[in-house]
């Protein structure tokens, strides 16, 4: 019996890895994910006040090692965390997404599909699943944002659930630029853990200063536009330097969106896409 479980696991890995997203095993998995969705939603909602309380205390501990400016920011965040411990927070999160959708920063020619986060990322995969899928107009490679900034992009879609690969995943790469100086590069995740990002491929003659804001570049090469619209906030530069041995600058970026604690996100879908 044990051997059969092992063999079955190996067979599932092989088939799941080799077949396309439209294959039968993926179809069964999609149906399973859809069936599990209500349980995940209930669990997430029941535990949200506890998780928010934990985040509040976690922020309190972190604040001791922050400088004065960050302490002020943390104070604001703590207030938000405290406010987030009730169902009112649901409204706040969705309201912020709504305000973002109707605000000047929202990309033109796009609509927002707002969705709850169902499963969180792990230490092995910086991917989450959200409660929106192809039935809601979501397609593979659609960008995903919060009111704070860019989160990642959709990498797999089922009718009711989608998988989002976060910016903190090693496979993510986003063309980005410094909003102040216009210096361009590629946002990637560093080799280690943690949420810090790096603006890679910035040549040494370009200027990038601490506290500069980094946004998506929305570059267009030939007939293939970037999947990310231009001007979406990504993060703030926390350090910038260069050495004689490296061909590019070393620019570290702290993402605006808290990639480790996402409750709801918005998927950007082009105007006019059927839903």
């Amino acid at each position, binding site marked *: *019996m*044990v051997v059969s*479980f*092992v063999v*079955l*696991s*190996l*067979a*599932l*890995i*092989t*088939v*799941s*890895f080799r077949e396309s997203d439209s294959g039968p*095993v993926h179809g069964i*998995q*999609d149906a*399973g*994910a859809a069936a*599990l969705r209500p*349980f*995940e939603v209930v*669990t*997430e909602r029941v*535990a949200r006040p506890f*998780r928010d309380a*934990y985040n509040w205390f*976690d922020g309190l501990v972190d604040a001791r090692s922050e400088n004065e400016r960050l302490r002020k920011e943390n104070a604001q965040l703590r207030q938000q965390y405290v406010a987030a411990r009730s169902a009112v927070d649901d409204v706040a999160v969705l309201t912020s997404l709504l305000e973002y959708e109707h605000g000047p920063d929202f990309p033109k020619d796009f609509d927002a599909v707002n969705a709850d986060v*169902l*499963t*969180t*990322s*792990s*230490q*092995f*995969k910086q*991917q989450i*699943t959200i409660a929106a899928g192809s039935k809601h107009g979501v397609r593979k490679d659609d960008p995903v944002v919060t009111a704070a900034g860019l989160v990642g992009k959709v990498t*797999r879609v*089922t009718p009711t*659930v989608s*998988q989002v690969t976060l910016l903190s*995943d*090693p*496979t993510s790469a986003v063309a980005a630029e410094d909003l102040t100086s216009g210096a361009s590069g590629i946002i990637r995740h560093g*080799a*280690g*853990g943690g949420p810090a990002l790096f603006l890679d491929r910035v040549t040494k003659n370009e200027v990038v200063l601490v506290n500069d804001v980094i946004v998506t570049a929305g570059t267009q090469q030939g007939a293939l536009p970037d999947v990310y619209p231009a001007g979406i906030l990504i993060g703030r530069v926390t350090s910038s330097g260069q050495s004689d041995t490296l061909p590019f600058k070393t620019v570290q970026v702290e993402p605006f969106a808290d990639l*480790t*604690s996402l409750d709801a996100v918005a998927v950007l879908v082009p105007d006019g896409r059927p839903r």
Partner: protein
Amino acid sequence: MTPADGLKAFALLFVVAIVQVSLLSSLSVAGGYPQLLLVTLVAVALLRGSVFGAAGGFLGGLLVDTATLQTLGLTSLILTVGGYWIGRYGETTGRDRTHAPYVSVAVVTVLYAFGATLLHFMLGDAVSARSVLLESLLPTILFNLVLTAPVYWLTGKLLRPVEWRDRAQEVRLLG
């Protein structure tokens, strides 16, 4: 072991797997990640033996892979082997030893980290071995050890330990 035992174990692992993927996977304390599913599986395997452990590991892993839309079978494979091994340990040398859950959880946490990293590498996923095996492994072990006592106690309440003489029939000691 009765069908009721199987149902209770299934329900327990189902709930724990949902909690794991919905809440705990991204919860990091001092770099460690609580693995409630792994700890619960160890408790089930120690209390009910290798077959229960393997079946529970396969089921729990399948739920995790399905809910997170990851490669099917990956977590199942690791948890099946882990559940079986801990079950055998419980049936033999670990029987009635108070330290057995702690030893099992510590060892399985290490094996899970190495096994998952290896499988992800084999599938071409970009996993930071430094992050998983150096930075987060020790705090994860400590975190899981903290969970062990309450989880083992609660699981023991749900799945009452099998009588010693019943379990002794499962293994024959020669010599």
